[in-house]
C-alpha cells in the first residue's frame, strides 16, 4: 500500500515537473483556502451553537391552538403524530362532556350517535355519580381535535392536542407548523417537550 501511494506521488511529480512552481503555488492556495474554511466553521460553531439549548422538537401551544383540524390532515405521517392528550388533574369528570358528546344530540349516553370522536378514541368509564373518567386511546386518535375543541369551549380544556414525540418523525420543518392557521406550533427544547394547557 505504502509503495503504491508513494508511486502515485511520484507520478504526479513527473507529470508536472514543467510547471512545478505554479503547482506549488496552487497547493499553497488550496491549503490557505482550507484553513480559511475551517476557521469560518470554527467561528460559526462558536457563535451559532447554543451548547445549553439541547435538541429542538416541535410542539403545539394549546393556548394558541384553535383546533382547526389540519393536524389530522397535514402531518407527513399517514396517521398524524398529533394526538389528543388528557390532563386528568384539570378535568371536571363531567357527565355532559363537551369533548365527548355532540352537544346537539341531547342524550348523554355512550351511544355511537351521541359521540363526537369520529374514530371512537375517547372512552368514558363510570366512576361514581355524577363523575365519569375520559381516556384517549392513543392508537385510535387521529388528531382531528374535535374533542379538544369541545372541551375548550365547554369545559376546562383538559383535552388538548400535542405532538407525541415517539410518533413524530422529527422533520426539520414541520409540515403542520407551516400550515397552522394560528401559528401555534414552534420548536421547543427536548428537555421540556410538552406544553401544558394551563
Amino acid at each position: 500500500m505504502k509503495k503504491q501511494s508513494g508511486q502515485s506521488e511520484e507520478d504526479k511529480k513527473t507529470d508536472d515537473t514543467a510547471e512545478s512552481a505554479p503547482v506549488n503555488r496552487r497547493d499553497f492556495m488550496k491549503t490557505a483556502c482550507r484553513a480559511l474554511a475551517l476557521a469560518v466553521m470554527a467561528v460559526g460553531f462558536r457563535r451559532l451553537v447554543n451548547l445549553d439549548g439541547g435538541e429542538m422538537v416541535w410542539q403545539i401551544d394549546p393556548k394558541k391552538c384553535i383546533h382547526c383540524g389540519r393536524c389530522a390532515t397535514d402531518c407527513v405521517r399517514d396517521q398524524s403524530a398529533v394526538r389528543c392528550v388528557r390532563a386528568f388533574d384539570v378535568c371536571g369528570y363531567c357527565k355532559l362532556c363537551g369533548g365527548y358528546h355532540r352537544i346537539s344530540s341531547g342524550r348523554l349516553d355512550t351511544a355511537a350517535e351521541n359521540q363526537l370522536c369520529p374514530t371512537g378514541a375517547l372512552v368514558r368509564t363510570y366512576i361514581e355519580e355524577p363523575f365519569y373518567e375520559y381516556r384517549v386511546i392513543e392508537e385510535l386518535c387521529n388528531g382531528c381535535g374535535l374533542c379538544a375543541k369541545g372541551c375548550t369551549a365547554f369545559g376546562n380544556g383538559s383535552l388538548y392536542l400535542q405532538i407525541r414525540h415517539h410518533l413524530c418523525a422529527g422533520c426539520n420543518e414541520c409540515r403542520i407548523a407551516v400550515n397552522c392557521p394560528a401559528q401555534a406550533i414552534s420548536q421547543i427544547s427536548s428537555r421540556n417537550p410538552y406544553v401544558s394547557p394551563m
Partner: protein
Amino acid sequence: MRFNKKTLDQILKGVQWPSAAACLTIGILLAATIVQTKIHAPITGSDFSTIHQLIDRNPAEQDLRDEIRALDMLARKAYFTSMHQLRTGTLLFFIALAMFLISWNIRTTLYPPLPPEPGEKRAWWTAQTRSAKTAAMATAVIIAVSITGGVIHKFSSAPAAIPEVVLEEEEIIDTEQFIFWWMNFRGPGGIGVATYTNAPMLFDGEAMAGIRWKTKTPLEGFSSPVVYENRIYLTGGSADSRQVFSFDVEDGRLLWTYDVRVAGDDLEVPKVDRETGYAAPSVACDGRRVYAIFATGELVALTLDGEHVWSKFLGVPDNHYGHSSSLMVHDGILFVQFDQYDTGKLFAINGRTGNVVWEAPREILSWASPIIVNTGSRYELILLDNDFVTSYDPATGTKLWSHDCMHGEVGPSPAFASGLVSVANEYAIAGSIDAANPGEDGVPPMLWRMRGDLPNTASPLSVDSLLFLATATGTVICHNNRDGTILWKHDFDRGFYSSPIAVGNNVFLFDRNGVMHVFEASAEFNLIASSAIGEPVTTTPAVLDGYIIIRGDSYLYRIDGIDISGTGDTDVSEADTDNVDVTDTNSAGGVNNISNAGNVNNTSSVNNTSGTRNARNVANVSNVNTVNNARTVSDESNESGESNEAHWDYEGDY
C-alpha cells in the same frame, strides 16, 4: 466461475422481474385505495353530518339510531382497514421496488460493458465550447424571463388583489324621508317614536277583528318588522338556516325569501339562548337595499327584490346569548354594532359597495341596538354596552363622549327626546344624559340616575319630559326625565319584552301575552285601551300610517283596527276567546311556556276612544330631533339638573 455467474444472473433475473410486477400491482392497488378513501372519506364524509342532523331533529326514532350505529361501525372499520392497507401496501411496494432495483444493479455488475469503438472521434474541445455557448444563452434567457416576469407582475398584481367595484351613481334617499316609514328597529332614529299618530288601538287577534291579515312566519326569530313602501322585511333563523323575508303590506303575501349562506358550509354555528335565537337583530333598510345580520355573524345586503348585493362574514361573535344588536342606516352608511367579549367592533359600511368606511373598537359585550339622533348641532350615534354609554360621530367614527354608568347585561337600547339621552337596564340604573349641552370637556352631564324597577329587554321610551320604563315583570314606571322623580307606577298582568312606542300623545306597548296596552304619555296613568293579538309577542311593532305591523311568535299581523265610530262595537263583544289554546301557537316558536292561557281572555277593553283616529299629522315630525326642541328643553333641564345629579351615589356593586 462462468457457470456460477450465469446461475446468479438467472436467479437475479428471477427476482428482478417478478418484483417489478409485484411493485406495479401493489402500486396500482395503493393508488386505488388512496383515491377511494379520498372520495369516500369514511369518517369525515358528509353522510355523517346529514344523519346526525336528522337524528337531532327526530330524537325518538330508534330506526335512525340503529342506522347510524351500523353506519358508524362500518365507517370506522373502513377507516382503519384502509389505513392498515395503506401502511402495509406502502411497505410492500418499497420492498418490491428495492428488490427490483438491487437485483438489477447486481446484474449489471456481473458483465462489464464492452469498451466503445476505438476509432470514435471525441472532439471534446468543440463539445466544451458549445456547452459554454449554451450556458451563456441559457443565462440570458433566465435573466430575460425573470425581468419580464417581474415587470408583468408589477403591472398586473396591484389591481388584481382587491377588485375595485365600480358602481353607477345612485341617488341616496334622503334620511329625512325615512320618518314616513319604519326603516329599522324602533322606527325613525331607533328611538321608538312614531311619525304618524293615527295608529289603531282596538283589535282582536283571535277573532281576526281589526286585523287585515295574518301570515305565518316561515322561520322563527325575534327580529322586529321593518316597513318601506309596500313591503315588510323580516328575518328568521335556526342553527341550520338563516333567511330574510319580504311580505306585501297590503295582503301579507310572502314575496320572497333569501337564504343566507355567507359563511360557507364549514361555519361553526354558535350556541345561542332560546330567548335570543339566531335572528334577533332587526333588518335595516335605506330605501335601496335591505341589510340583515344574524347570530352567526353573517351580514348581507339585498335589493328590495331580494337579490344579493354584497355580503360579509364578520366571524362568529363571542356572545353567550347570541348576537342581537339591530342594524341602523344613516346617509347611505350602515352601522353594525358588533359587540362581543374581546374583539367587538362598530363598523360603518358603505351600503352600496359593502366597503368598510370606518371601524371603531368596542369595549365589551352588549345586546342593545344603536340609535342615531340630532342632539342640537350634530348627529350622534349612541351605543350602549355593559359598561358604557358611548356617542360616536357617524361620519368619522370618532368617539365624542362616553359615560361609565352601565352595568349587568345590557339589552335595552337608549331613548332620546328633547336633547336627553336616557338609558336603563335591569341591575344597573335608569338615568339621563344631557347630550345637547356637553360640558367644557365635551362630555355632557348626567342629569340623574336611579335604581328601582328597571327593564330587562324593553327599551325605555322618552316623550317630551317623561321617561317610560317597562319591566319584564309587568310594571310600567313613568319618570320625570329632568330629575328622575317617579310620577307613577302601574302593574300589568304580564311582563314586557317588546319596547314601547310613542304614537302622538299615547304610548303603545305589547306585553308578553300579546296584549297591546295604550296609555297616555302624561304625568298621570290613564289606560286608554288593551287589545290582544292572540299569541305571545316579544318583538316591537312597526307603526305606520293608520296601521301597525307586529310579529307574534308564529304569525305576522297587520292591524288596521276596528272602526267603532261607525258600526259599533259588536265585533268586539262577540269575540269569544275563552278557549284559546295558546300552547298550540306556541309550539312552532317553542319559546316560553305561558302558564296562564286565560290571560289572553277579555281581550279588548275600551277606556277612552276619543281621538284615536287622528288624521295624519305630519307636523308631529318635529318630535324627531329638531334643533329648537332640543335646545329649549335642555335649557330647562340644566337648571333643575345640577341639584339632582348626585341623588344616588352609584359605585358599581349592588
